[in-house]
């Protein structure tokens, strides 16, 4: 909502400064978005005449105009507007002027070799309208005698742009804002005297609101003005509209706009001669069409509220009029409409047709239903004054009566909610200044809600009104008490937090990427899941929710490779989605590493990152998080975006059916498809929802501290075993030979090749043997050795390598 202080002062008697105004507006909840300072520089803009135009010698689209601005000498101005032609009256900005729109100060400047003295302005550059196509064209009759004079005769008042919250339609009118300000002690609200219409002429155009189900029009007031002469608006009216950034059109249109902004009372003006046999307000039928003032043809759905006549649709009630019945400069008879439309109906229709207008904006928020007559009278009187003619009596058709709202307000609620103590007298005064009728009882007020406040329906709304006007700044802070009665994080949140930081300590940089992604990339990682489409994506490459943590991460990794990085480690911890319903999501920690380790190192041999790097990262992280490594089960079943031979999955223990993590090389086909250029790319995913909370909390986790001081023995073994045999299984078999004596089993060599059959490999292990209660003798050790060899050979078919 744009206003000026000058306009506000028509309703408000005040001597406060504009700065005070701006602070007060914000204090009472009418947030000031911006203040556009209009400086005295506007005096520099002059009415001028284009004497002659020539094509610019060095630029096809530019012209060199000779401009008369009332001095003896003319000036040359380079101009790009297509409408710059000989004889045109326009607005000239000499060097030194500041263009209101972009705040650019003009200087004498050479443009492609021709010196230009100032500029010819478009309406948009002067903030007169949005019209940026071509320079201003001034009316010849009006301006031909004014060449060289200032175009802006009056100093403009600063433009204040307010962000009015949707609950306050009353403040979409200047008077409503003035009322709020006056209530808050900022000046005095002036009376709003409206002359009565004394006419005895009947309003001859018949209006009928059909009583249909869901009829969107509740009341339709009208007034007919006959024999008018539509003209350009007088200066005061034009200045007023220009001052808030609106473009004057003709007196009749300008007056309806003026009343709308002044009182928040939208009106519509019809050329009465174009209405065929009266107006019927009805619901549309599916497929009906009409051409609206936005010059588009709209095809309607069933049940939209339309204003129609015998020939069809004249307009969409409360949203937009049609071209067929619009007023023009030669309009003789005007019908002014002042109606009340149901906000929900307005909103539904405008959403369906995607039309946004000033009227729609106001009606959908709720117009004062009792302002129908006031608006008609104000507009009709103005039209008569400016355009002459005769005014008819006012006709108001309605299908429902406006129901007054009453609220019984228990006064103690105010203090209970706000923590503020103020007297009943003060409360009563605030409310009556806002327009409430207050009837004071002992503990409560009986309040009649003003008709312009559709937002106020219950007691809490009253509390807000009082605090808002009294001042939020008067509320005293109550310091919070430092007491914690519940743990801040639950166990799952603690694991999230722990894994996030644990993986970062291993060199991964945390990334946060969108929860949505490109379906083309998602397809590579979604496995058997279905794409979850966003109906209205922000762009076609962010059109589905991600099914995998990799879809975005890999794309951003690739972007970093393009930036020249080679050895990257990125991770993200966040949601992935497996269905379109709330809760069909899982939290995943995914990481990717690319390139090499110890690249170009003088001391270490460089090598590519590999599956065992990520396996280490995953296992170490899980162990650090409190899961027992001895329980882990690893196999090689992985989704298709991993290298089929170089990837694995981890279960936390044998009995869990849910995968705790995947790790491995990313499938080379994916690198190819995404054009990822790196020596190696490995990754992992940890599924947080599949991790059970570690059984014991940290304080119970420590078992009895036991250790042995007896001598440890190390024995090495080498077994020749089937190539496909899983080394983990071998370790398990050996560990179980004697759980008390065998402390650890470690693979230190894998060998295939010479001296080993083709389908076999050699695994060399080191076994640590130690007793808790004695030093083992050679015989004891021999026994264990033999048992190990025998068990392994028997259970696995391996043969000890001699």
């Amino acid at each position, binding site marked *: 909502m744009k206003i000026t202080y000058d306009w506000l002062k028509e309703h408000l008697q005040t001597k406060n400064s504009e700065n005070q105004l701006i602070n007060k507006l914000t204090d009472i909840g009418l947030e000031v978005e911006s203040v556009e300072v209009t400086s005295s520089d506007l005096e520099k803009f002059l009415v001028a005449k284009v004497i002659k135009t020539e094509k610019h010698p060095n630029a096809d689209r530019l012209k060199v105009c000779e401009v008369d601005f009332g001095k003896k000498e003319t000036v040359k101005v380079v101009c790009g507007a297509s409408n710059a032609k000989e004889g045109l009256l326009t607005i000239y900005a000499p060097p030194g002027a500041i263009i209101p729109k972009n705040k650019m100060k003009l200087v004498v400047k050479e443009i492609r070799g021709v010196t230009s003295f100032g500029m010819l302005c478009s309406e948009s550059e002067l903030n007169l309208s949005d019209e940026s196509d071509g320079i201003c064209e001034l009316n010849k009759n009006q301006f031909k005698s004014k060449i060289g004079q200032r175009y802006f005769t009056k100093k403009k008042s600063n433009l204040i742009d307010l962000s009015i919250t949707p609950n306050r339609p009353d403040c979409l009118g200047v008077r409503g804002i003035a009322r709020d300000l006056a209530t808050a002690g900022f000046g005095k609200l002036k009376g709003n005297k409206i002359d009565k219409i004394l006419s005895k002429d009947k309003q001859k155009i018949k209006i009928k609101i059909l009583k249909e189900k869901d009829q969107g029009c509740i009341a339709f007031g009208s007034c007919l003005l006959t024999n008018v002469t539509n003209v350009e608006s007088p200066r005061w009216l034009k200045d007023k509209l220009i001052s808030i950034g609106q473009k004057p059109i003709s007196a009749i249109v300008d007056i309806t706009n003026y009343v709308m902004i002044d009182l928040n009372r939208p009106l519509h003006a019809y050329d009465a001669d174009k209405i065929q046999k009266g107006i019927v307000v009805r619901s549309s039928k599916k497929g009906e069409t009409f051409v609206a003032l936005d010059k588009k043809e709209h095809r309607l759905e069933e049940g939209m509220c339309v204003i129609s006549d015998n020939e069809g649709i004249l307009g969409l009630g409360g949203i937009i009029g049609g071209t067929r019945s619009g007023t023009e400069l030669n309009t003789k008879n005007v019908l002014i409409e002042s109606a009340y439309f149901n906000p929900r109906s307005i909103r539904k229709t405008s959403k369906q047709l995607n039309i946004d207008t000033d009227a729609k904006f106001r009606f959908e928020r709720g117009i004062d239903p009792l302002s129908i007559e006031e608006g008609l009278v104000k507009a009709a009187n103005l039209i008569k004054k400016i355009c002459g003619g005769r005014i008819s009596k006012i006709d108001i058709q309605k299908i429902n009566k406006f129901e007054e709202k009453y609220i019984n307000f228990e006064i103690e609620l105010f203090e209970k909610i706000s923590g503020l103590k103020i007297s009943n007298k003060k409360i009563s005064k605030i409310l009556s200044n806002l327009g409430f009728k207050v009837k004071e009882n002992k503990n409560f007020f009986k309040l009649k809600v003003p008709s312009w406040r559709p937002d106020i329906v219950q007691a809490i709304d009253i509390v807000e009104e009082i605090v808002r006007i009294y001042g939020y700044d008067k509320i005293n802070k109550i310091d919070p008490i430092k007491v914690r009665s519940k743990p801040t994080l639950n166990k799952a949140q603690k694991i999230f937090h722990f894994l996030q930081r644990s993986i970062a300590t291993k060199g991964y940089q945390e990334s946060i990427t969108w*929860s949505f992604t490109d379906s083309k990339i998602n397809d590579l990682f979604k496995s058997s899941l279905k794409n979850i489409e966003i109906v209205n994506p*922000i762009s076609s490459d962010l059109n589905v929710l991600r099914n995998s943590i990799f879809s975005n991460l890999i794309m951003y990794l690739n972007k970093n490779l393009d930036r020249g990085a080679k050895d990257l480690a990125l991770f993200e911890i966040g949601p992935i989605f497996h269905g379109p319903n709330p809760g069909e999501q899982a939290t995943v920690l995914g990481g990717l590493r690319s390139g090499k380790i110890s690249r170009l190192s003088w001391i270490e041999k460089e090598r590519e990152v590999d599956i065992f790097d990520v396996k280490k990262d995953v296992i170490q992280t899980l162990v650090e998080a409190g899961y027992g490594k001895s329980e882990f089960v690893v196999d090689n079943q992985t989704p298709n975006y991993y290298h089929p031979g170089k990837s694995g999955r981890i279960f936390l223990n044998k009995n869990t059916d849910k995968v705790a993590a995947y790790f491995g090389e990313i499938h080379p086909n994916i690198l190819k498809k995404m054009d990822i250029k790196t020596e190696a790319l490995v990754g992992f995913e940890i599924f947080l929802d599949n991790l059970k909370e570690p059984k014991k909390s940290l304080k119970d986790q420590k078992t009895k501290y036991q250790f042995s001081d007896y001598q440890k023995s190390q024995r090495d073994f080498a077994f020749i075993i089937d190539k496909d045999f899983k080394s983990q299984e071998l370790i398990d078999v050996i560990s179980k030979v004697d759980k008390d004596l065998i402390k650890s089993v470690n693979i230190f060599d894998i060998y295939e090749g010479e001296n080993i059959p083709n389908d076999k490999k050699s695994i060399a292990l080191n076994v640590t043997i130690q007793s808790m209660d004695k030093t083992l003798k050679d015989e004891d050790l021999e026994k264990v050795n033999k048992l190990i060899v025998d068990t392994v050979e028997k259970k696995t078919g391996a043969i000890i390598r001699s």
Partner: protein
Amino acid sequence: MSDLKKIKDEFLSKLQKKLDLSEINKIKSDLFGKNGLISSEFKKIGSIAEPEKKKFASDLNIIKDELQEAINLKLNQIEISEINQKLEKEKVDVTLPERTFIRGKIHPVSQTIDEISSIFSEIGFSVEEGPDVENEHNNFTALNTPDNHPARDMHDTFYLDKNKKKLLRTHTSPVQIRTMSKNKPPFKIIAPGRTYRSDSDQTHAPMFHQVEGLHIDKNINMGHLKGCLNYFIKEFFEIEKIKMRFRPSHFPFTEPSAEVDIGYEIKDGKIIIGEGNKWLEILGCGMVHPNVLKNVKVDPKNYQGYAFGIGIDRLAMLKYGINDLRSFFECDYRWLNHFGFDPLDVPTNYRGLSR
């Protein structure tokens, strides 16, 4: 007797000289070898008559110890000097680079979430979560934002179905609904998380982060709200004084509603929070609307309280001087490295929020 003294003096003086290892070993064997001088003297003990025997043995032992000590000392010196000589040859260029390491970082948004959680933890809030995909009921209707209400225009919503029943949550407020529906009052929670609006420019991203706050109890009023947020902002920006302004606003799910601005100024191109006479909006809040409480079966006659919603990314930008919101989500490794935090920098109350 004089023999002993002679041996002692002779050999002590020998040991004064510069000797190498073999020379010392020779002295050692000359003295203590099988037929060494001292060894021979010991053999004499048996043949000495009683009155002198004891004294002789005692003197001999003293001399033996003295000589042995002198030899050990010499040996030690040689050992040390030999080690030193060896080490002299082992010198490396310590300015050569260390083995390579890679450094992980925590994203500034995650760090900020942890900072926020840490602050609210201190005053008794616990952390709740909710799903990213929400139904229209939890995101709007239950929050007193009925269909066809213009307030829905304030949120550009991503929908997952044509009927607009399933959507990506536009704020963290649905967590209020979820929390209150499944539990009994009082409630004192914060809910950080991802939120989505179909909007993208320098200051808007289609995904961003919010933290919701909710405190419902018997007598929680606007004074508590003001006190809580004032405490939070002071703690978060780690400054003693903060200029804060509560200004009336409108959210369908709170009433009265407020937006909170903090004072700032620009000094040498940097933003200074808490001073100056410019205002920056940082959060929205208010007293939970009785309709919302009714929707989750909490009796507004007995319970009341406040809620707030804070833009986490915005806070992180202000605190850590980050200019472009979109850069948060572009994953540029240089940016992550520059603005990220060491994983061991866990914000806690006892060691402070930030280093």
